[in-house]
Structures are given as structure tokens and as C-alpha cells.
């Protein structure tokens, strides 16, 4: 089996991301279930990199010329979803912080008045 340079980069990146997930799990930023999800996801990624032919059926059904094109489009869609949900959750957190700080300031002022 010949492994291309791009596959080596993909595998190293996936291993690195598993390591990053592990560190976050150790710091308790991720719970057990989340940790399992990320390991599963990056393992799938490694399998697809090593055996891109397993996606050939899907590539044909969706009329993509190459498996790489399918992966690129999927990556863009995932990144867009992540970006959008980050934006929404940021806005929610901002609003919560604003409300909390403002209420705290008003209460403190009226109490000390």
C-alpha cells in the first residue's frame, strides 16, 4: 500500500487532535462521552484517509469526481456549522454576562443608596 504525503499529514493531524482531546479530557474540559465521540471521529478520519475507497460509493451517488472533493465539501459544511454555532453561543454568553453585570451593579447601587 502506497501512502501519499497528504495522507501522512492527515494521519499526523488526526493523532495530534486525539492528543489535544485527551489533554482536554484530563483537564475535565471534556466528559467521558465527549472524549469517546472525539476519539471515534478522529479514528473514522484516519480510516478514511488510509482507505479512501470505502467512500467511493457515496462519491459516485453524489456525483463527485474524487473522494477528496467530497471530503473538502464535507469539511467546509462542518466548519460553517461550527462557526455559526460558536457565533450564536458567543452571543448568548455575552448577553448573559451583560445582564449579570448590569443587575449586580444596579442592586449594589440601590442597596448602598
Amino acid at each position: 500500500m502506497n501512502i501519499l504525503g497528504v495522507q501522512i499529514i492527515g494521519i499526523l493531524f488526526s493523532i495530534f487532535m486525539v492528543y489535544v482531546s485527551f489533554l482536554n479530557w484530563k483537564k475535565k474540559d471534556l466528559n467521558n462521552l465527549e472524549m469517546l465521540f472525539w476519539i471515534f471521529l478522529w479514528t473514522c478520519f484516519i480510516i478514511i484517509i488510509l482507505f479512501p475507497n470505502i467512500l467511493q460509493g457515496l462519491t459516485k451517488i453524489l456525483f463527485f469526481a474524487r473522494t477528496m472533493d467530497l471530503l473538502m465539501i464535507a469539511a467546509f459544511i462542518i466548519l460553517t456549522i461550527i462557526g455559526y454555532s460558536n457565533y450564536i453561543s458567543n452571543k448568548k454568553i455575552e448577553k448573559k454576562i451583560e445582564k449579570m453585570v448590569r443587575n449586580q451593579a444596579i442592586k449594589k447601587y440601590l442597596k448602598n443608596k
Partner: protein
Amino acid sequence: MSRQNYFVVVPVYNEQERVGIFLKKLKKITKRILVVDDGSEDRSAEIVNRLKIPIIRHSINLGKGAAMKTGAEVAWKLGTKRIVFMDGDDQHDPKILPAILKKLDSGYDLVFAARTISTKTPLARYLGNRIGVYLINLFLGINRSDPFCGCFGMTKRAYDRIVWDSSNYNVETEITAKTIKNKLKYSEVPISAIYHDKYKGITILDALKIMINIPKYRFQ
């Protein structure tokens, strides 16, 4: 009594150089002042305390719009019916206060101060302001001479209808847009602006953000 039924709300953020000067001038005109310190890291709050002016303090910096909202809500809780906002950077002449209150008394929901252009206006600010004013008037279909001016008065009734979401410098644009949308009665009074620092206040980045948000407020 009716003339006393108001508060001047002054949002302040890191204004140790100017806030003392401005508040001393404002104290000569009125004692009904509420300062909102928006998480300043300098000596602004200490200066306000020394002047024995009531101060509400945000524990972190939230932005001008949020500070204005906090000040307004405290003023309403204290039972007032009208508020006037003035920036704490000594950019607005406090002598405008009676004119704003007089107009509010005569039945206007909002009274906006409009800065007059003088030879002392820095060119970059003048150009930025003119372009901004033109775009805001165009998009919102209005004819305001200075929609970016942070000095304006409003009644409780107006506040309840236009209570803003913006926590930053977009607040004036949002208030203008909501004034039009809610068909509130507004007027303008001229004010001579004092420019101390070419580089403070609304930055080019803030101006760009305001421009990007104009369509949002127009079609909200």
C-alpha cells in the same frame, strides 16, 4: 417639581483625564447626576467619588450602550420620568441641559443634541461624521443632522418603546432607527462640541461596525 423630575446619566470608561472637568461643569448646572462607570481601569471612579456624585459601577467593561441602559434603569427605579445622556469625556457643553428638558416638557419623546461644525473640528472626524450621517439618513430615510451625538434626552415612555440591545457604539444608531420605527416625536437642539483628542471616541473600526449594522436596524 416637574423640572426636577429628571436625571443626567453619564457613562464613563477610562476617562480620568476629562471626567472631573466635565462633572464640575455639570454640577454647576444640576445636582441630578448619575455616573455609570463601565469597568474603568484608571482613576475615573475615584475622581467621581471625590466629587460626591452617585456612581453605579460595572465590574467589567460592557460597552457604552450597556452603561447607558444601566443608568437609565436606575433612574427609572428612582422614580424619574426623563433622562438626559451626556458623555463623560467633556465633549458636550452641559449648558445644553435646560434646552433639552424644555423640549421634552413641550411634548417631544426624544430630544437629540446636534454638534455644530466649527473650524476646530478635526478633519478626520468631520469627514467620517459627514459620510456616516449621509449613509444613516439614506438608509433610515430620515434627516438627522448628527445621529452619532451621545447627548440626548428621552422620556420613560420613549425608553419603554426603544429599549436597545446594542452594548457598544452602535447604540446611537439603534436608538435613531427605533425612534423612526416607533414613530416617536423627536427634535434636535444645536450643541457646540469640544474636541480634546483626535484619536479618542469612535474609531474607524467602530464607524465600520456602525455602517455594517445600519441595514440590520432598518429591516429589524
